[in-house]
């Protein structure tokens, strides 16, 4: 008579140097065979102390630091900072600048989601979507490059407007790009969304209900995948978003597959937004009348904006000088990561990468 074999759970360390942890992220998994019993995320490998650094820099010097947080959504970060300061100082940026800001942010959303799409495919074990996504991403990236001159860390959106006006052929290039982009998104959709194995791997897995998602502080596509209609662009509108027509895609089950679909649909909506902006974009200046040195009045302000990864919040305390007293950032990736432990429990080892990928984190922002 052989009794039940005594087995010991095994600790498996993943990261910080692992091909699919999406940066220097570390997971300590406790596995029982192939099942994950417990998962402990370990962060901090990319911590640069951005928030503290900001306290010693003038407001204009802070912008490049914001680029380096969520480096896949640099324009959106810059916008968040600009919004906070403009609110505190009571500055109204020119209308043309507002339109260009929204265009750039939505284009960045597309590039960011394309990145998600590509790496999602890789996480699931197929490399082709990555290349297809990057072809699309490259085209958008080139337009962004023509605007700011760089591919990353543009330092383009400033307090009170923009660094400079967009190049003369901007609208033309963009209107040529958009139909191609639309087609490219459909191509990506066809390539992966309804693949049987993809569905088998992702549908119904690591699901989280809307209520729980709110409790965990999820935001952005991850929250909307659970069916919660919360999009900062709609619920706490900023810039010119109230004037624009777009849908907020919602999922139903909050599983991996929903999180993936939401992002595909958001890309379509972003294209729609950019089209509208191009149509309505007025001529005019791109920078408001600004004082030489930025000295916001004493006080505090909290502004949030919808980043590709979710609710990007900037909490700014000013004591009247040219440097912030405290600058706190609510990084959506960081908050979204909190749910990982709960999602991973009971999954297979093979799923953990997919679950992590579906949350779409950027380590630059998690650690700041």
């Amino acid at each position: 008579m052989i009794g039940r074999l005594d087995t010991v759970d095994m600790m498996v360390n993943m990261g910080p140097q692992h091909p699919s942890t999406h940066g220097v992220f570390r997971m300590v998994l406790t596995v029982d065979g192939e099942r994950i019993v417990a998962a402990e995320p370990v962060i901090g490998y990319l911590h640069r102390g951005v928030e503290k650094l900001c306290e010693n820099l003038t407001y204009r010097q802070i912008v490049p630091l914001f680029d380096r947080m969520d480096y896949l959504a640099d324009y959106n970060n810059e916008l968040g900072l600009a919004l906070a300061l403009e609110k505190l100082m009571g500055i109204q940026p020119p209308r043309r600048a507002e339109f260009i800001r929204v265009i750039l942010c939505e284009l960045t959303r597309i590039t960011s989601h394309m990145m998600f799409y590509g790496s999602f495919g890789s996480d699931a074990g197929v490399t082709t979507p990555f290349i297809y996504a990057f072809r699309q991403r490259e085209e958008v990236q080139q337009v962004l490059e023509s605007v700011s001159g760089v591919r990353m860390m543009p330092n383009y959106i400033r307090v009170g407007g923009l660094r400079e006006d967009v190049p003369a052929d901007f609208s033309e290039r963009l209107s040529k790009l958009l139909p191609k982009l639309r087609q490219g998104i459909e191509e990506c959709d066809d390539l992966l969304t309804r693949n049987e194995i993809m569905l088998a791997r992702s549908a119904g897995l690591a699901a989280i209900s809307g209520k729980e998602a709110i409790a965990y502080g999820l935001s952005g596509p991850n929250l909307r995948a659970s069916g919660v209609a919360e999009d900062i662009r709609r619920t706490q509108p900023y810039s010119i978003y109230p004037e624009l027509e777009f849908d907020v895609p919602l999922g139903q089950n909050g599983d991996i597959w929903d999180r993936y679909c939401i992002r595909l649909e958001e890309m379509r909506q972003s294209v729609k937004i950019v089209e509208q902006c191009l149509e309505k974009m007025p001529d005019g200046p791109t920078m408001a009348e600004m004082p030489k040195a930025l000295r916001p009045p004493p006080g505090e302000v909290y502004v949030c904006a919808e980043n590709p990864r979710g609710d990007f919040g900037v909490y700014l305390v000013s004591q009247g000088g040219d440097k912030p007293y405290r600058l706190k950032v609510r990084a959506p990736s960081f908050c979204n990561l909190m749910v990982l432990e709960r999602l991973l429990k009971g999954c297979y080892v093979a799923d953990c990468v997919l679950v992590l990928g579906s949350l779409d984190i950027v380590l630059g922002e998690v650690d700041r």
Partner: protein
Amino acid sequence: MNWVVELVLRVVAVLAFLVLTVLFLIWLERKVLGRIQMRMGPMRTAPYGVLQPVADALKLMTKEGLRPQGADTWVYHLGPVVAVLPALLVWVTIPFTGSLVVQDMRLGAFYIVAVSGVSVVGMVMAGWSSNNKYALLGAARSAAQMISYELPLVLALLGVVMLAQSLSLGDIVAQQSPWPYLLLQPLGFALFLVAGLAELARNPFDIYHADTEIVGGPFVEYSGIRWALFFMAEYVNLFAICALASLLFLGGWKGPLLPPILWFLVKTYAFVFFIIWLRAALPRLRIDQLMTLAWRYLVPLAFANILLNAFYLYFELPAWTLSLASLALLGVAVVPLYRHWSGRAVVKARLADRVGMSKAESQA
């Protein structure tokens, strides 16, 4: 004495052919994969990068062979050898044409099955001795996967053996006239292909490699020539399974006009291309889904296939009845499998995709 010389020559010729084939397969895979992904693939080493695999091989040979601390030295060093030997030994009895074969055995099919079964031991040795948890997970996966899929693979092969009344591959090919066994055994062919893919650990079954989770599985700690041996074993196995598929189901070297050896290569490379294509197109299954597929679907189907063949042979029915019955069974098998994997999800897709994407109320 003469026959010894001849045998040695044959063995050397096959080995040389296999080494060249492995180099060519690596190049082909990178090129085809590149083209499917809108890239060029290797282009720098010689025209169209044909020398890329040679450069890779040279690099691997000059690399330092590391051994992790705490590794079981003997087992660690033996692992690649145990993995690569069966892959090569199989080729003793795989015929290229009727006469181009090292030694056609009367028990050829049995020999192949028996020898190739050993290679899993090499994987497990490699994974166990590396003293690495990823490698251990990979080894466990490879053992589970290869042992599970050997069953349907062998049973599908058994169907062909029943029809040919012989275990010799030469006889099996000779029996396939005028029609190849693909027409008689569509179900057996499908089973062989799926099980073969899993046996090779190619997409969508590359579960014990799983670069994104366990970063290469059992081989994670190997470098240099030892790693190259594993790599070589994989490609030789790939070519062997493709060759077997063409021999068992497509009539091997038989065909009009072209010389026999060319027919053999054309058919085999068709399978090779198909497998590379799958790699570009399909994500990876999970280990539990893989096991479900094997034990719940493939194994019973393989037994059903054998039963069909037995009925056909016992009652001496006309050939078309077997074709039809086999095809019908394949259809019956595929539909519930499809449901099992994506039925609910497909409904969900219809609900959530586009149509159900509801518009959030604007509070602005």
